[in-house]
């Protein structure tokens, strides 16, 4: 049995070595763009990666935009390869576009450093809201001289913005939130799937980055139930999906799993200790907002995203169903709103239009 387990581990490790076959490099930034990676320092010492795509010619007065990814991923979610990159797409349209990797993901510090901070732990949402986001916003503002930054958050990235702005956070111009649930009754098998994950609640972290890379050669041949849950496969080529998995899947903090478990149990968006009801204070958010839900998003279906939009206090807010019924050419799932062949043609122009319509008056 022990030999079998060792052989299995060895096979996974060997398979993992081949992940480079699928992993795309960022490649050159592209004509008229400059790419750089900078770091913001969180108050508790975590170093946070910020990847910037800067247009050759900045539009005077236009705010920079900060992109914040969701759970189990990193900033490569917005920049899979040169042909599948929302970040470059925006930069080519004149937006100074920054993508943050939250702590313990991507190019940011990856593990709690107990030497630097004996109390360091795998993150909860509060770490992102109270430390990472203020540090990232400050770094972008310092580098650009902007007084405010536009914000686009996908999934957990949107939840972070809700919590930050609902608590009086400042420095955000316009807000785009995509696929971010604030309620947690799916009425689908997702609830069943999540219940099977309960044993993970006791883990400190789940090394999904390594696991996903190790299983990539298998994924290339065997469809898994994950894909139809996470995306509408009509919207991207399988090779793009594998490329994303090879660079974009990241480790999962056990504290986040436990916090999400509380959300599901209580059917509301709360802090890890249950004391702060993030959903209940959305009325305090006043910035112009666009909230998007994928028509066939199984993770954050429209009926779980809409209550967040309804609760926003923003006098200027817009709701979009990412699907044919919302005027797009395709129906979108959770991840294919960005890891996508189709989104540049119909969905991303809608995001750009919202941001342009809410630019500061020069």
């Amino acid at each position, binding site marked *: 049995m022990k030999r079998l387990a060792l052989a299995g581990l060895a096979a996974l490790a060997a398979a993992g070595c081949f992940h480079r076959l699928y992993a795309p490099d960022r490649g050159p930034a592209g004509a008229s763009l400059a790419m750089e990676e900078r770091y913001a320092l969180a108050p508790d010492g975590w170093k946070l990666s910020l990847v910037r795509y800067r247009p050759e010619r900045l539009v005077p007065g236009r705010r920079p935009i900060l992109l914040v990814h969701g759970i189990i991923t990193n900033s490569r979610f917005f920049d899979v390869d040169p042909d599948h990159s929302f970040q470059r797409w925006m930069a080519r349209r004149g937006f100074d576009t920054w993508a943050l990797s939250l702590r313990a993901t991507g190019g940011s510090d990856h593990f709690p450093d107990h030497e630097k901070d004996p109390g360091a732990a795998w993150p909860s949402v509060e770490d992102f809201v109270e430390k990472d986001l203020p540090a990232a916003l400050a770094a972008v503002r310092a580098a650009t001289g902007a007084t405010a930054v536009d914000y686009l958050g996908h999934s957990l990235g949107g939840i972070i913005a809700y919590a930050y702005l609902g608590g009086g956070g400042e420095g955000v111009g316009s807000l785009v939130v995509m696929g971010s649930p604030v309620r947690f*009754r*799916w*009425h*689908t*098998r*997702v609830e069943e799937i999540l219940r099977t994950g309960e044993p993970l609640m006791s883990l400190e972290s789940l090394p999904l980055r390594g696991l996903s890379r190790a299983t990539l050669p298998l994924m290339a041949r065997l469809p898994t139930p994950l894909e*139809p*849950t996470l995306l509408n496969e009509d919207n991207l080529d399988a090779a793009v999906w594998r490329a994303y998995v090879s660079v974009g899947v990241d480790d999962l903090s056990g504290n986040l799993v436990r916090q999400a478990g509380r959300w599901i149990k209580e059917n509301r968006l709360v802090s890890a200790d249950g004391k702060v009801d993030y959903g209940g204070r959305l009325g305090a958010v006043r910035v112009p907002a666009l909230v998007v*839900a994928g*028509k*066939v998003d*199984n993770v954050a*279906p*429209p*009926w779980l*995203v*809409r209550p967040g939009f309804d609760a926003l206090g923003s006098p200027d807010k817009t*709701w*979009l*169903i990412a*699907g*044919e*019924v*919302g005027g797009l050419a395709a*129906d979108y799932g959770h991840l294919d709103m960005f890891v996508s062949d189709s989104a540049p043609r119909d969905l991303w122009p809608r995001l750009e239009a919202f941001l342009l319509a809410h630019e500061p008056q020069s």
Partner: protein
Amino acid sequence: MTRAVALGLGSGLALASLLFAPPAAAAPRSYHRKLAAADGTALALYRHGENEGGLPVLLLPEAGFPREAYDLDGDGLASGLAKRGFDVYVLEGRGAGRSAGTFDPATAVDDARVALAAIAKGRRPAVVAHGLLGSLVLEAAGEGKLGAAALSGLVALGSPFGPAAGPTFAEKLPGRCDRGLGFSRPASGLDPLAMIARGNAFPAAAAALLARARFSPAACALAARAGHGFPRLPGRLPFPVLAIAGMRDNLFAPEQTLALAEAELPGEKVTVFVAGRVSGFSEEYSHLGLVAASAARGDLHGRIADFLTSLEAR
């Protein structure tokens, strides 16, 4: 060589399976019967099979759709339920198929009441209703408008019980829907495929069905009101309800059907689920797909039958 042997073996097995396979069960015969509405209008009621002892089940097609929605050349839900022993009837609404008149919400409820009385035979029938008809039936039941033949339960397929989270095609219908919902794109600019049939494969019979379907102006107006004052939900759920939402339903979004569960009405139990791939279904179901998709036979008929069986056992 090996390939040739494998091919030969495969062909042999395929041939043997054809020779020795049991013959496919024939669809139960259907019988047409004229029914006079309370105001004398001629309605068409169809019976599938002759299951005298089975639970009477009345199938109500979506407003403007003929009985073929449940028939599909013998492969539809009507046959599926008849083969399982239910005493199955389909009532064509006014203006659809062989029923006279035009669809109107008030007469639709009256007509359902007449049909229920005709099929009850001393038992409490169940209703399977598509779209607007499911909403109308629940509203009417709450207001005591279904008459003495109280229902044993309701299966509502893609029926709206609350507001949508965003725009729906139903809101764009008024004034344009009388041009038909056929597969050829009508001049209205609404793409009927996107509206009610996207994402599903359909048998040939369904294409003919779509070509014949017509929403009346009253049906359009009612569809646009779904979630905005229509339907009025009962204060107490009078019978068990199985409500199935189509993940890709663009006419009445899934959240409109799920609203029945979110309302947490006292009384009988409501069971809801969203028919989509994440829940193990073959496809993301559209509005029409819930009754007429090729895959519905495998995905949905058994679940509906199980629910009806549970009503029989009560």
